[in-house]
Structures are given as structure tokens and as C-alpha cells.
């Protein structure tokens, strides 16, 4: 029993990090029609930005804040201006290809210009663990869950309760009608890019301490985010959350009870099952065929 | 009703989007060789009706019969195989293919088997037919250029020529005159009349251009707010006060 609870908690914590990346992924798709294959690199870059900040002797929280600002400028507004805006009119495929190219460029820049090796990043949470009734849960997992949970809930509240948030949802659901309703579509889309960038920084802060910051760390995170988004439902924000947590938990269960060798296959089997049986995703709505 | 069995029977088609009834109980039939025009102001449900007949959307209720067979809700592919051709409101050509290849592509799937086509001649035996159509539509000078590189009017002609390449028994044309310059409209009408005479198919034409419809179609249906308002000879429909009101009062 203790095993199971511990597996569930740490799986949910890992899944919450996937969910953060997947959430940004879904938001970008909904609001701007962008499938971002550089999403993993968007998590990797802030990890290195924080690393640089720490190297200058900054405390973790300040390095994190600076990384947020930098990410918002470069990975948010910059990405939109330089890559997405000129390409969006060509359709989805050229944009997908461009983000693939971007991922390679970013990864290789870090490798060639900075380091090919892994680097440790201090954890924002204390080490050690909490023991309640024979169940041990590490502070890192609790902290991850708390922070990721707070961000996800906060984001949901923002999207559902505020005027700006609702406007953003309107844009995501139907850009044309949103424009007719007098919503500043361009601004809302920009907000989505900014939110995506900041989500990536949080994911980096949570993931780098145990996974180590490395130029290719985005490969696995990006893939998991991609899988999580599709499993949950590409057009549903809540779907990304479900997909991420589902992957995190099931990976842990399979790794423990079956074999760690096929742990990486969990997300995949789930993913293949979903696209074959329920292509709109677990929580997604089917899109009507357009003429 | 005349004794000749009809080719297309549309029976009480309804399509609702929530509370909005886009098509609200439309019935009509088309006899072999007949040209039927459908007119009506914007938002009168013409295109929804078309899409319901053509399998692009599923009607809420009602049925469509083609040669006595129920074809309601069939996929566009199944309809095409039964000899129903169509054109689209917006331009729909294969931009990367040459004009000649566009026309061959429009007919090659109707003869032989799929493996057979792999080993068929490159023009699938349709080169001559394509050249005839090119001649008829006066596209000879651009026949080997990619369709995507031509002017709007030329692409429109290709679009329409493609619908007739396989000599379908029924062709539904969705606003063939939209965006076409007035000089071409007459040419288009003559072409359609000629095709009707030589190939003998039936046409259903949706159009805004009243003059075009009135001169082309011996039988006209006027739709307003999802319903058939008037039906009959062009002159009769045109002088129907309700039709006049629907158009002018708008």
C-alpha cells in the first residue's frame, strides 16, 4: 500500500511537470494553430539561463525570475514575431518543419556554444522526506506538486474567471467570431505565447534538479508533452493536464510492477491507443469536417 | 409529375444548426437531361442544401434518391462513383498539375481497376478526351502550364471542365459565375448548354446571377429562408410577387 501511494505521488509530481509543458503546447495549438516541436527546447533553454544566473552568484529565486523575463521576451514574443508570424499563413506543415529546425538550432547552439555535458541545478525544495503512517513522500515531490498544481489551478481560474482569460478562450475556440466580438485577437495570441514561455520556465525549474540540465534534455520532455497533449485532447486545456498526469503515474506503475525497460513505452501505447480509438483525445471534442 | 422517372429525388430535406433551420423541408426532383436552377438570396440555405445532397454534411432528416437508390449521407467518393459530379463555390483545382493533367485526373478513376491504372499508359487513355475538353473550353494555349499559375477565370473554366470530364449523369454546380467577369459568363452558359446537349447529363445550378439562370435553366427553384418559395418556368418564378418581395424587400 505504501508503495502504491508513493508511486502515485511521485508519478503525479512527474506528470505535473509534463502537464506544464503540455499545457503550453495545447494553448499554442488552440490560439495560434501552432504545433511547436521545439517545446522541449523551450524547457531546456530556461534551465541553462538559470544555470548562468546561478553562476553569477544570484539566488535561485532571482535566477528564476530573470529566466521568466528572458523567456517571455525570447521564447514568447520573439518566437511569435520571428518564426510564427511570417509562417502562419503558409499553413501548419511549414510551421511544424520550422519548429523542428528551431529545435535543432537551439539544441546545437547550447551544445556548441556552452556545453555538451549535463549540469546540476540546485533544487528549490529541501531534501529529505515526510513520513506519515509508513508512507514516505519526498519534499521535492510535495513541492513540485504544490507549485505545478498552484500554477495549473491559477491558470484555469485566469482563463475562466477573468475578462482577458475568457477573451483568450474565445480566440482559441473561434478566431473569427472572437474578432467579430471586438476582441483584440493579436494581443490575446501574444498572451498565449507569453504564458507558454513562463510555463516552460517553471517546468525547467522543477525538472532540472533531478534530471540535470543538458542540451538534449528537451527531447524526452518535448515528446512527453506532445503525447500528453494528444492523449488528453489537443483542443482541451484540461486534457493536457489529464494526459500529463496519466503518463507520469502509469510510467511509475509500469516501471515498478512490470519492467523499467518498457517504461518509456507507456506514454506511447497510451498515445497509439488514443489516436486509434478516440482520436479527439480523452477529453477532446471531435472537430467537424470542414469543407 | 410526368411519366419519365426522375434521376434525382430530394425528399423533405431538413438541416438544423441548433435552433436555426438552415434547410427546412425542401423537396424537388430532376429528370434525366434536365437543367434545374436554384436561386435565392444569401443565407436562404442553398449551399446547405447542396452539401446535404452531396454528402458533405448529414441532413437532420429527409432523404435523397438517385436513380431510385437512397444515397442520403453517402460519402463524396461513393457519390462520384455513382456518376454525380460537382463544382465548388470556391476554386478547387489541382494547382501543381498541368491543365491537361487536371482534366485527366478528373476522369481517370472511373475506368479500370486501381492496379490496372498503375500499369496503364501515363495518360490513362484519356489524353484525347482531355484535349477535346481543352479545345471546347479554349484552354489550348495554357494546356501544359500548372493550373495554379493561371488567372481566376481560367481556373474557373478548368474547374467546370473537370466536373464534366467523366461525363457524369448528374452535375451540381455551386455558383459557377461567382468571381467570373461578365464576358466569360455568356461563354460559360453556352458551354453548359452545349455540354447538356452533347453529353446528355442533368444539371443542378446554384446561382446568384439571375440573368444567367433565367437563360440557362428551363426549370427554376427559388429558396428563401430554407424553404422553397416558388418553382416552375423562369418567367413564372421571376414574375412571382413573393419572389420579387424576397429579393427586393431585402
Amino acid at each position, binding site marked *: 500500500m505504501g508503495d502504491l501511494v508513493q508511486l502515485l505521488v511521485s508519478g503525479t509530481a512527474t506528470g505535473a511537470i509534463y502537464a506544464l509543458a503540455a499545457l503550453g503546447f495545447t494553448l499554442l495549438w488552440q490560439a495560434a494553430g501552432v504545433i511547436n516541436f521545439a517545446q522541449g527546447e523551450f524547457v531546456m533553454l530556461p534551465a541553462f539561463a538559470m544555470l548562468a544566473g546561478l553562476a553569477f552568484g544570484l539566488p535561485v529565486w532571482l535566477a528564476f525570475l530573470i529566466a521568466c523575463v528572458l523567456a517571455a521576451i525570447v521564447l514568447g514574443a520573439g518566437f511569435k514575431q520571428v518564426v510564427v508570424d511570417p*509562417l502562419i499563413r*503558409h499553413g501548419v506543415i*511549414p*510551421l*511544424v*518543419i*520550422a519548429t*523542428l*529546425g*528551431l*529545435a*535543432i*538550432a537551439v539544441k*546545437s*547552439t547550447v551544445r*556548441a556554444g556552452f556545453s555538451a555535458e549535463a549540469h546540476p541545478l540546485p533544487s528549490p525544495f529541501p531534501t529529505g522526506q515526510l513520513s506519515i503512517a509508513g508512507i514516505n513522500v519526498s519534499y521535492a515531490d510535495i513541492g513540485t506538486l504544490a507549485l505545478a498544481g498552484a500554477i495549473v489551478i491559477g491558470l484555469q481560474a485566469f482563463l475562466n474567471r477573468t475578462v482577458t482569460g475568457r477573451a483568450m478562450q474565445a480566440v482559441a475556440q473561434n478566431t473569427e467570431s472572437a474578432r467579430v466580438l471586438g476582441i483584440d485577437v493579436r494581443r490575446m495570441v501574444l498572451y498565449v505565447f507569453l504564458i507558454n514561455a513562463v510555463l516552460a520556465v517553471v517546468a525547467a525549474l522543477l525538472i532540472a534538479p533531478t534530471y540535470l540540465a543538458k542540451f538534449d534534455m528537451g527531447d524526452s520532455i518535448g*515528446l512527453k508533452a*506532445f503525447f500528453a497533449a494528444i492523449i488528453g485532447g489537443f483542443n482541451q486545456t484540461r486534457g493536457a493536464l489529464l494526459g500529463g498526469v496519466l503518463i507520469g503515474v502509469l510510467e511509475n506503475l509500469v516501471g515498478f510492477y512490470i519492467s523499467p*525497460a518498457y517504461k*518509456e*513505452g507507456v506514454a*506511447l*501505447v497510451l*498515445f*497509439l491507443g488514443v*489516436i*486509434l480509438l478516440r*482520436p479527439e483525445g480523452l477529453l477532446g471534442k471531435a472537430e467537424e469536417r470542414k*469543407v | 409529375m410526368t411519366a419519365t422517372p426522375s434521376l434525382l429525388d430530394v425528399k423533405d430535406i431538413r438541416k438544423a444548426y441548433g435552433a436555426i433551420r438552415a434547410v427546412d423541408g425542401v423537396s424537388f426532383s430532376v429528370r434525366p437531361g434536365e437543367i434545374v436552377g436554384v436561386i435565392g438570396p444569401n443565407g436562404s440555405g442553398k449551399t446547405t442544401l447542396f452539401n446535404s445532397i452531396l454528402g458533405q454534411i448529414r441532413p437532420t432528416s429527409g432523404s435523397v434518391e438517385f436513380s431510385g437508390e437512397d444515397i442520403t449521407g453517402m*460519402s*463524396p*467518393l461513393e*457519390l*462520384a*462513383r455513382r456518376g454525380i*459530379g*460537382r463544382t*465548388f463555390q470556391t476554386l*478547387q*483545382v*489541382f*494547382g*501543381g*498539375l498541368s491543365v491537361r*493533367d487536371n482534366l485527366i*485526373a478528373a476522369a*481517370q*478513376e*472511373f475506368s479500370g481497376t*486501381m492496379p490496372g*491504372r*498503375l*500499369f*496503364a499508359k*501515363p495518360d*490513362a487513355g484519356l489524353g484525347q478526351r482531355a484535349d477535346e475538353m481543352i479545345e471546347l473550353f479554349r484552354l489550348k494555349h495554357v494546356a501544359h502550364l500548372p493550373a*495554379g499559375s493561371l488567372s481566376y477565370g481560367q481556373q474557373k473554366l478548368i474547374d467546370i471542365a*473537370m466536373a464534366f*470530364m*467523366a461525363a457524369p449523369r448528374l452535375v451540381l454546380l455551386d455558383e459557377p459565375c461567382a468571381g467570373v467577369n461578365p464576358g466569360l459568363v455568356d461563354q460559360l452558359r453556352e458551354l453548359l448548354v452545349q455540354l447538356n446537349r452533347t453529353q446528355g447529363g442533368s444539371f443542378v445550378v446554384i446561382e446568384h446571377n439571375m440573368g444567367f439562370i433565367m437563360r440557362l435553366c428551363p426549370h427554376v427553384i427559388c429558396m428563401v429562408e430554407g424553404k422553397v418559395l416558388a418553382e416552375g418556368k423562369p418567367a413564372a418564378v421571376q414574375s412571382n410577387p413573393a419572389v420579387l418581395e424576397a429579393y427586393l424587400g431585402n
Partner: protein
Amino acid sequence: MSAPARRAAMLVAIVAALAIGAAFLKRSDVYLLTLTMVYLMATFGLNLTVGYAGQMSLGQAAFFGIGAYVAAIALKAGVPFLAVMPIAAVACFVIGLALGFPALRVQHHYLAFATLGFNVLVYLILRNEEQVTGGTYGISAIPRPTILGVSFEGHLAYFHFTLASLVALGALLWWLLRSPWGRAFAALRDNPIRAESLGVNITAYTLLAFAIGAACAGVGGVYYASLVEFIEPGPFHFSTSLMMLLAVIIGGSGRFYGPVVGTIIIILLPELLRGSSHEALKFMQKWYLVFFGLAVVALMVWLPGGIVSLADRFRRRSTS
């Protein structure tokens, strides 16, 4: 001389120059050229799927790997090379159909996702199913072919054999693209909705384009296994699929020679840079992938037709 004749003459000249010139190259350069041609078999196939039929496939390396492993196992079991090739091609074709059918049945753009997932799965199986695939140790000592008593063991002989096979494969694809099938592929790429209304069975043609592309990758895999004489799961990771896709797109998808340019940029050029000892080139080697990635982005913005489409641009400019 007419344009097609001129093009044919140029092709013959290039192939002849390669065939003769290879004898004057170093062993390692011949190996590199052969490797490029092997990848080219896979990217030619991918171009059919992506460029001519308009379907995103992110799993070409999986089929490349299946071909390579089928070849490795069969060749070591003594099956003659000429029999292995069709076995691998058919295996990939059938697997392609089996993968594509359910994916296309639901929604057409899901083929991209399904192939990506499939590639990850194949990679895991190659690594974990040790009894069959040798796991991470891979399979070594894969023989090179001997056909009708002629041995292609030597590096030059194998190069010529691969070159001839590549030309044959290219000719086959050329013929396929000129057949009514090729026209149907292009039609469904340009406008699937219109194509369907004209009786084109888009599901069947998409599936075929995908499966034929997969079969080409399988053939490439056979030549790969025999060339390297050793295989392990690494080269069949889905990142290879991404690189193959990029090769097709930057070269010019839907253009027959597009993959040639793309594959040279992705396989041959970095290896040549790696081998150089010149300082400036060493710098290039280190930053190659950075430039490459940025070039992909720039290309998508300014030249979505790929590098080969540059020629068209110049031609159009000079005629107009």
C-alpha cells in the same frame, strides 16, 4: 536537344562520373558516398509520401530499421541478397498498410502522430527484444552480397552495386510518378476534397503512397545493414526520421531530385566537414547543426519549395 533529353543526358553523365570517379577516392570517402546513397533510397521513398501525396510521415527511420534488421537476420541465415530485398520491401509495405489503415480511417492528419509513435515503439522493441534483435549489442558480421558468383564484398564493388540499385529504384519511382497513380497522388496532395469528389479514393491512395514510401525505406535499410556490416538500434531512433523529413523538405518536397540535395546536406556534408582539419571548417563542423536548424527556419519563411525550387525561380525570372 529537348529539355527532357538534356536532363537525361546530364543524369547519365553524373552517374557515370560517380561510377568512374569513385575508383580515385579514398576508401572512407567511398563509404560516405555509399552511405549517402543508402539514405537516399529512404528519402526518395519519403518524398513520395510527403512531397507527392502530401502526408507527413515521422517514422521513416522505423521502416529503415525494419529493413535493416530483416536483412541482418536473413542474410546471416544465408538467405540470398536478391531474395532479402523483396522480403524487406514487402514487410515494410505490409506494416505500412497495417499502420496507416487505422490511422487514416479516423483522421488524415493523424498519420503523422501515428508514425511518430510507431517509430518510438520500434526503437524500444529493437533495444529490448534481445533474442531477435541482439538488443543494444546489435547484430554484427552482416555479410555483403554475392550475386551470380560476383562478390560485392569490396568497398568499390559495393559502391557500384548500390549506385546501380539506387538508379533502378529512382527509375521505378519515376515510372510510378508518371503513371496515373502519380497523378492521383498529386491530386490528393493539392486538394483532397476535390479529388474525392472526382472519384479518387483518397484513403487508398494515401495508404499506398505511405506504404510504398515505407517499402523504399526498407530497401534502403537492407543496403545499410550490408554496408555497415553491423546494426544496433541507435541509427533508427525517431530523430533520424525527423532528419529524413527535413532532408526531403529542405531539398524540395514533391520535386524528384529534392531528396538528393537534402540528403547530401544532411548526411554527406557534415561528415565531410568532420573529416577536415582546416580551422575554418572545424568551426563550421561544430556549428553545422546550428546553421542547419536556422536555415530550415529561414527556408520555410522564404523558400518553402526547398532548395531545388531555386532553379525554377531563376528560370521564371529569366523568361519573364
